[in-house]
């Protein structure tokens, strides 16, 4: 064995390496040549699509991914162009973004903040993504938004409904097209008053985490403004699958409306339990018992099946709308994938186009230019009617849909019917509204 000499050489070698290793950090501080993070230099530009592909929101995530791929096709001038033809801004030519071909990378958020950040970081550090889009939960959205702010890229949020995303956690590099819990409350309240009267007693079951609380707070505030009384608000653990023990007390509480602040699988299970207990057949306080699900989605509606018939809720967008933008998007999505898109798919599609358009109008990929182009941008033709990207908090303002589980669906996708399109003016609020106060946009960060 000649281990000794090997060891000695090893020692010398490792000593030398360790020395360089320790010396290296001092040169890290030297700034690089690029003007901003991941400045695209070649003939293509990379977007990062970070969606849940596994976990409780996997279905929403995969639908988002389909829409994002469609958006990339349209940007590159393939397919029928979709909403590029109906979009009020005509900056996009179908030749990529600023003449650069659009490419994309995908990642799995697993609906976990940590995994989502890891995935987004690898897109930024490894693949050179200039913008991150997607996500199907508010926790993930806030986490990734914070990361994008630090790294100096733009974050275009996907499905995120908690007030905090553009409230106390808002960031200059982050933008939300989706509506929020406050808007749900503001849109639902008049419809609830018209359908159920002004003297109702509500009982809330709320998913016990950030989004659930902001939603409960919003709905309680807007229904109490109507004259409703809140009997009780009960928090349910997110991991629950059986809500029987939470439903039983509702019957004896003197309430005549049950509000389910649940989403995804939680909502499917709690609604099913409530129906099994025959809540909808009960009469309380001389009125028919009602159930409200403030945040709806097509995928949840499909999961709950028969049970959602007649149940009221709100949505950001629905494929049955009749404006030009919606028709164009539903047509190209349907032709490509053989099914209508969900509202999470639509928000991601719109976000990708909005980003591309902002870059075109700004004439640069520099995040600060993009932020400037998006702030207080007024547009139309993406499916939600006239829309305003407010500069003060980077939240989109547009009409909100109030929907009801369809009594007589004619096909598998016809599960929801639109009750009312609540006009934008009714859901607007002050950026310093108490439910949104406490945050600070900060300054746009171009990185580098």
């Amino acid at each position, binding site marked *: 064995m000649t281990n000794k000499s090997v060891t000695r050489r090893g*020692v010398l070698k490792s000593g030398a390496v360790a020395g360089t290793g320790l010396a290296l950090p001092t040169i890290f501080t030297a700034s690089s040549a690029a003007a901003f993070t991941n400045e695209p230099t070649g003939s293509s530009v990379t977007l990062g699509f970070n969606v849940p592909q596994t976990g409780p929101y996997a279905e929403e995530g995969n639908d988002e991914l389909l829409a994002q791929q469609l958006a990339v096709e349209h940007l590159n001038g393939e397919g029928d162009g979709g909403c590029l033809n109906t979009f009020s801004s005509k900056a996009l030519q179908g030749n990529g973004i600023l003449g650069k071909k659009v490419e994309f990378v995908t990642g799995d958020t697993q609906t976990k903040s*940590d995994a989502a950040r890891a995935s987004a970081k690898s897109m930024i550090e490894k693949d050179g993504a200039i913008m991150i889009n997607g996500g199907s939960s508010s926790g993930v959205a806030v986490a990734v938004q914070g990361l994008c702010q*630090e790294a100096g890229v733009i974050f275009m949020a996907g499905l995120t409904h908690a007030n905090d995303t553009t409230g106390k956690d808002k960031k200059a590099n982050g933008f939300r097209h989706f509506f929020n819990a406050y808007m749900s409350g503001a849109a639902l309240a008049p419809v609830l008053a018209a359908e159920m009267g002004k003297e109702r007693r509500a009982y809330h079951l709320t998913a016990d*985490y950030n989004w659930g609380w902001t939603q409960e707070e919003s709905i309680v505030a807007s229904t109490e403004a109507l004259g409703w009384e809140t009997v009780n608000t009960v928090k349910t653990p997110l991991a629950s699958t059986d809500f029987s023990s939470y439903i039983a007390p509702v019957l004896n509480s003197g309430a005549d409306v049950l509000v389910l602040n649940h989403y995804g699988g939680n909502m499917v299970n709690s609604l099913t339990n409530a129906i099994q207990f025959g809540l909808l057949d009960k009469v309380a306080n001389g009125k028919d018992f009602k159930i409200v699900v403030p945040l709806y989605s097509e995928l949840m509606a499909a999961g709950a099946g028969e049970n959602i018939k007649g149940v009221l809720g709100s949505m950001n967008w629905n494929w049955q709308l009749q404006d030009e933008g919606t028709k164009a998007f539903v047509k190209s999505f349907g032709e490509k994938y053989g099914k209508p898109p969900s509202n999470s798919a639509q928000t991601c599609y719109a976000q990708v186009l909005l980003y591309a358009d902002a870059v075109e109008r700004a004439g640069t990929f520099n995040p600060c230019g993009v932020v400037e182009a998006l702030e207080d941008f007024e547009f139309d033709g993406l499916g939600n009617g006239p829309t305003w990207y407010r500069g003060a908090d980077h939240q989109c303002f547009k009409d909100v849909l109030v929907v009801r589980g369809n009594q007589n669906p004619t096909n598998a996708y016809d599960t929801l019917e639109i009750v009312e399109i609540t006009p934008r003016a009714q859901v607007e609020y002050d950026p310093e509204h108490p439910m949104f106060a406490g945050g600070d946009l900060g300054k746009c960060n171009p990185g580098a």
Partner: protein
Amino acid sequence: MLGLNKKDTSLLIIVAILTLLAPFILNPFPEGSAMAQFNAGYPDLMQRFVIFGIFAIGFNILFGLTGYLSFGHAAFLGVGSYSAVWMFKLLSYNVIPAIALSVVVAGLFSLLIGFVSLRRSGIYFSILTLAFAQMSFALAYSVLSNPKFNLTNGETGLQVYADDPQILQGANAPDLPHLFGLPMRATYTMDVGAWSFDFNAGYYLCAVIMMAVFYLAIRIFRSPFGMMLRAVKSNQQRMNYTGLNSKPYTLAAFVISGMYAGLAGGLMAAMDPLAGAERMQWTASGEVVLMTILGGTGTLIGPVLGAGFIKYFENIFSKINDNVLHSWFAFLPDGLEDAVVFLIHPFIGKGWHLTLGILFMLVVIYLPGGLVEGGQRLLNRFKRRKTGTDDAPSGKTEPAE
């Protein structure tokens, strides 16, 4: 050297070389080539390799030596992360106090949990630790994040806000985690021809710390204390009959491994100043068990290899999508291309769990000693062949294993 025998010294040196040269080793393919998809040499993943390496080394001190299978180690990782972020919020973005506090808090927390859990052994111990970890997760996810007493910020994850006190934060100190002014995010990119290598400050901090704790682990393995822990694993009853109280030893091992986990958690927060409750979930605890078993339980280097293996799959395979596949197999005729992509599709992207599961099964069935055993077998075969060639002129047939 450093109180180690020859074999351990060379092991330590190999680990040092591997970690310090990781930016080169992990980026073997030129930028822009089709194989660049498999490059793992970007800062975030390299940091994760060493951080989870530290986590697994610590776990192995408990599991590999005493045989106590803890299913709740993620709780200590999470506690470490939360302490570190609180340090960022209260003191400053300097990582030193953050990492120090994370180790201390995780140590105290593991002392508490270990004291209760170690009253039982075997499956009961595992279940107790699992219960504690899930309890911590539930506390962090909702109970301790209500608006009145917000310790963890729940689902969103604890992060630093502009209006946090940060009493020691200097006027022109970087607004992100730094080591005396050197930001953890700072990366120097070296371009060599078509290749590009990233040298990241945060990674090197983690790497240096990992080498230190790896050295510590070697010392623990080789010490009388380590011998005592091994005795616990082989026959605790007999130890008790000889009049030795094994509990202080197991508790010490539990606390040490809890501190390792806390250190890993603190480093995670130092690299990326956000602490999410998911870090404490039982899946995260299960992951470190997998890492240790995959790499080789009770070996020194095994857990580090296992950690790297799993993180590589999670971050690289989950990002391969159909588009990438199509670009790889574009040279095939259309029908064949689609067929090949269709066949591979279930194993990439969201199917990375499946690929990892299959590999894990193969390793456990054919290499019960983990990747380390695989390496040893290869090495043995190589050595034997070498000696075999010396005998070759005699024309004897080599003995088959």
